[in-house]
């Protein structure tokens, strides 16, 4: 069962690198925000997997809960901050 958790964690790391492409090269600011949100939701799973591998899951659960809350607050604050701006345009067309 430990090997299943290890390979699931490695696969999640691969998916996080694929989402990082959208966070770096997204045409608008909101595309980057989508990439960051996807990485954050994968990290919540990865933290519990790390806790199961290290046999300290009662500590890592609290970190995962705090990380999920931090991810939500980050996306909410950033989207509220950018919605009043007129600078949201597609950077690839011009």
């Amino acid at each position, binding site marked *: *069962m430990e090997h*299943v958790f290890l390979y*699931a964690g490695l*696969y*999640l790391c691969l*998916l996080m690198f*694929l*989402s990082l*492409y*959208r966070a770096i090269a997204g*045409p*608008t600011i*909101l*595309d980057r*925000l*989508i*990439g960051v*949100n*996807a990485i954050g*939701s*994968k990290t*919540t*799973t990865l933290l*519990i*997997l790390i806790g*199961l591998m290290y046999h300290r*899951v*009662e500590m890592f*659960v*609290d970190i*995962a*809960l705090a990380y*999920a*809350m931090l*991810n*939500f607050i980050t*996306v*909410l604050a950033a*989207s*509220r901050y*950018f*919605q*009043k*701006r*007129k600078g*949201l*345009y*597609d950077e690839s067309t011009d």
Partner: protein
Amino acid sequence: MNIIITLLLICGLIFFTGGTLGILRFPDFYSRLHPAGKLDTFGLVTTVGALALYIAFSPGSILTALKISLIIVFVFITSPTATHAIVDAGVRAGLKPWTKPPAGKS
């Protein structure tokens, strides 16, 4: 029991793969939010639910399993809210949705 947990974990990883492929491949920002909002939420609920089952059936850690199900409830409420906030920012900033380009002009 281990077979059920492994199947749930693989199912959640398939959902995560679909969400990541959708974020990479869809043409514009509104359509990218569709896999990012749904598939990531459901993948996280499935994988974290599998880990909660594994922890609940190991001895002496029922409180940890309860905390993990608290994570599931929290994410199930907050992830659609975050997605809706991103859409709202895009609409108020005046981003146009993607339409199919006319034929012969690619």
